[in-house]
Every structure is written in structure tokens, then in C-alpha cells.
């Protein structure tokens, strides 16, 4: 086990990220709702640079009481990272694909010590 120094906690704004590399390994470290999450920069689909994609709320469809569609909206609770190669989406907090929870990014532990952010590999 090794701890890789990512940067200062203050360098991360909300919904911000850093992508680091050590040898072949690439990891994206995200800050969301004040917490840190780290995932391998390797999309389960075809190995694309998932952590370098757009960050968007999960798209939800609004249904009326009679089950008629009332349009679409972005989720206020579920935030996704989207693979720029093909559009695979993953929940930034869980690393899971919204349509198949078995499709999941490889997680890494993040530690914050004295204002410094580390990822454990």
C-alpha cells in the first residue's frame, strides 16, 4: 500500500477533480458535496478516460400521478461522470452505472490529512 499525494484540499472546489498518473495507473479524484471519491480512469466499457468526461446530473423523467410523462430534468442528488469516449455514465459517489450496478469503476481510498489529499493504492 502506498499513499499518493494528490494536492491540497483547498485546491479542490465543489465538483472539481484532479487526474493523476503513476506509471500505467491513472486515477481521478473528485470532490462532491464536500467529500472525496477516487476512481480508476478506466471505463469498464472499452477502457476510455472516464474521469476526464463531463460531470452532469443524472437525467430523470418526470411522471405525473397518472403516469403521463411531464418531461426531463437533471437530478439534484445523483451526479454522474460521463465517459467522453462513448457516454457510459457512473454515479460519482458509488462508481456504479445507473442501468447495471454490476458495472462499476475500480475504487480507491482517499485520505485527507492536515489539509493534504492522498489516494491509497
Amino acid at each position: 500500500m502506498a499513499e499518493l499525494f494528490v494536492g491540497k484540499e483547498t485546491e479542490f472546489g465543489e465538483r472539481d477533480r484532479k487526474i493523476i498518473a503513476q506509471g500505467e495507473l491513472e486515477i481521478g479524484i473528485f470532490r462532491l458535496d464536500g467529500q472525496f471519491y477516487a476512481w480508476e480512469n478506466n471505463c469498464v466499457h472499452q477502457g476510455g478516460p472516464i474521469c476526464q468526461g463531463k460531470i452532469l446530473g443524472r437525467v430523470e423523467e418526470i411522471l405525473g400521478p397518472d403516469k403521463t410523462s411531464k418531461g426531463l430534468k437533471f437530478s439534484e442528488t445523483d451526479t454522474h461522470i460521463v465517459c467522453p469516449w462513448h457516454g457510459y455514465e457512473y454515479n460519482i459517489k458509488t462508481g456504479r452505472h445507473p442501468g447495471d450496478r454490476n458495472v462499476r469503476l475500480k475504487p480507491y481510498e482517499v485520505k485527507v490529512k492536515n489539509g493534504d489529499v492522498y489516494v491509497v493504492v
Partner: protein
Amino acid sequence: MDTGIEQVKEIPIKQIDVYTDTRDILARARKYAVKNKLEDVFICDIDSHHTETEHWHEIIKFISDPVLRAQAMEYQSSRTGAPPYGLNGDFGLRYQDIGGRVPHQSSRREKVEDTSVHRDVTLARRAYESLGLDYQIIFPTPMLFLGVHPQPEMEVYLGDAYNRWTVENVLKADDKLKIMAYLPFGDPDACMRTIEEFGGAPGVIGFMVTSVRFKPIHHNQYMKIYRALEERGLPIGFHAGYYWQDPSMLQVNRFGSMHALSFVWCNVLHMTNWVMNGLPERFPGLKPVWIESGLSWVPWLMQRLDHTYMMRTSEAPLLKRKPSEYMREMFYTSQPLELDHMKAVECTFDMIDAKNSLLYASDWPHWDFDAPSTIWDLPFLDEQAKRNILGMSASKLFKLKVPATKKKIAA
């Protein structure tokens, strides 16, 4: 002193966008190619694309009709807001990038400083070097809808202009880039002229019919085209597309739904006509290539047609074997390879005789492109089959030279 804390480097590109260099977008594909020693594997990409409308002001200068050419040049120089001159396009083109989620589909605005070759050559080189390709066949994009243009003559003029522009600006600049030249299938006589003019042009390795059209490909008027291609030993490609204005597709509201159906349906129709009207018996030396419909439709259609044929043999009197047997002898490009049900994939590969019939295709830079890893990582194929699919079968079909440095495993 070893603190146990290791230094790392930061990758500067936090978010890939339309300005990102192709080599950065595909950096992980390049790493895969190096890690898996794909430099030893001969790889041909039978279907990639460029966006010809980015250079439409150049292409229209090659329109042979002086009046249309003048109209086009005037329009391109003074238009505001409207689509490029002469192109019909499709409504669905607006949605390909999944709302901007796939930037390389949206637009490629990366810097190109080399002015010694056309920008499209540089972009293609960045892609084929990243993906580890030896050859790349390129196709246009919005022009794939010309088969349903309300002015049939426009397909002839624009197809011809595109062929000329591409030969001059792209193919002559890079021997690794090839095309299947655009056949204006709405006008068989024009097709004959096209075959005559471009059949021996540098970099032209076959001819392409855009599959989005509503003319039956078994009509007698097309027989001279098939014979001409068979005599020249040039494959005919049916490049699929979607068409949201197809009446049946008008029932579908989501782009993905329409794309999933329409991109396959056009080739389902053409294949059915091709087989049931005995085209393989009429032109046994002509090699059809079914492009960009994926593969999952093929076993389905094989079963449908075999089942029907065995009861209604009298309606397909030219056939001497089951439809599926003819279909096994045709060629298919791999993209978009539907990999979500691996047992079905293996069955599909077996049914189409993939080790001899399947040709790797990337479809780069479109939103559903496939890297060579889609073939190299398949768990049920031996290495010979992977090498055949990635390039060796294409080298035989299109007579492409295999570099001496590439390892070849005897078939």
C-alpha cells in the same frame, strides 16, 4: 528518507472537450496498443469517418456542372445559418453526441499546425497512430443520406465532387488512407461512369452504396453495376445509416431508439433482396461488404430467411442453398460490436464464420466507435481468428499490402 508517500504526475486535461487533441482523446487506446504489442498485428480499419461538411466550401469546387457549382459557391460564401449547399442530412444528426457528452462526435476543433497536408489527413494520422492501424478506409458522414435526396441528380454531382476532392486532397497524400468511392446509386448510368473514372484511382479499393434509400437493389437496372465491379475484382459496400423520416421510424421518439433500429433496418432490407433474388448466384465473384449495422441482426435474418425459404423455395428459384449459407460467405464490418451478451456474440461469430468474414471497423470519430481492443479482448477467439478479423481478411479482400514487419500466422 522513505516517507512511504509517492510522488505522482498530474494529467493536465481534466475534461476532454471539442478542442482536445485526438492523440489525447485516444491516449488510453495508444497505451492499450503498446501494452498488448499491437504493433506486431496487421490492423485495417474498414470504416472510419471524416466530416466532409467541414470542408464543403472546398468540395463544391469539384462539382462538374458549372451552374450548380456557381450556385454552391455563391451559397457557401454568403449563407447564414442554413446547412451546407445541396445536402439533405437527417434530423438525427443533431443528437449524435448525446447532448455533448461525447465531444469528438460534436466537433473536432483541435489545433493542426502542419499545413503540408490537408487537415483531414493530419486528423486521420493522429487517429490511426493512436489506434495502431495500418490502413484506414474513410467514409463521409452527412453524405450518407444522399440516397433520399429529393433531387436525385444532386447525389450524382455531389458524389462525384466528393470522390474527386478526396482522391486529390486525402488519398494522394497518405497511402494508409483508402476509400470505397461514392456510387450515385440513384442513377445507374452515372454509377457506370463513376466506376470507369475511379476504379483505378489511387487509394480507391472498392465502391460504396449508401444504404439509406428506397430503391430495391435487385432491380435489373443495377445488374450492369454489379457485373462491372465483379469484373474488376472490386468489393461493393453497403454503408448503413438511419433515416428518421422513414414512416416506421416516425413512431420512435428517442434518437437512440431510432438509431438502434434504423441503422440496421436498411441493410436488413437490402440483404433480404440481395439473397432472395439470387444475386450471389448471379455474381459469385462479387464481394458485398455490409457496413456499420453491427452483427446481431445477421443471425436473426439468417434464421428468418432460412425458415421462410425452406417452405417457399419456389419464390427464390435462383438459390441452390439456404440463404444463411450465402450470408456466411459475405463480409461484415464489426462496428458497432454488440458485446453485452457474450454467449450471443460467440454464437453470432460462429454463424457468420467470423474468422473469415468479419472485418474490424472503428467508426472513429463517431460516438459508438470501437477500438481494436473490442476484437483483441474477445475471450472465445484464438489469435489467428483475431488477426484475421483485425486485418488479414481485409488484406485479402481489398488486396492491401501487409508490411513485412508485421507478424503473420499461417492460415
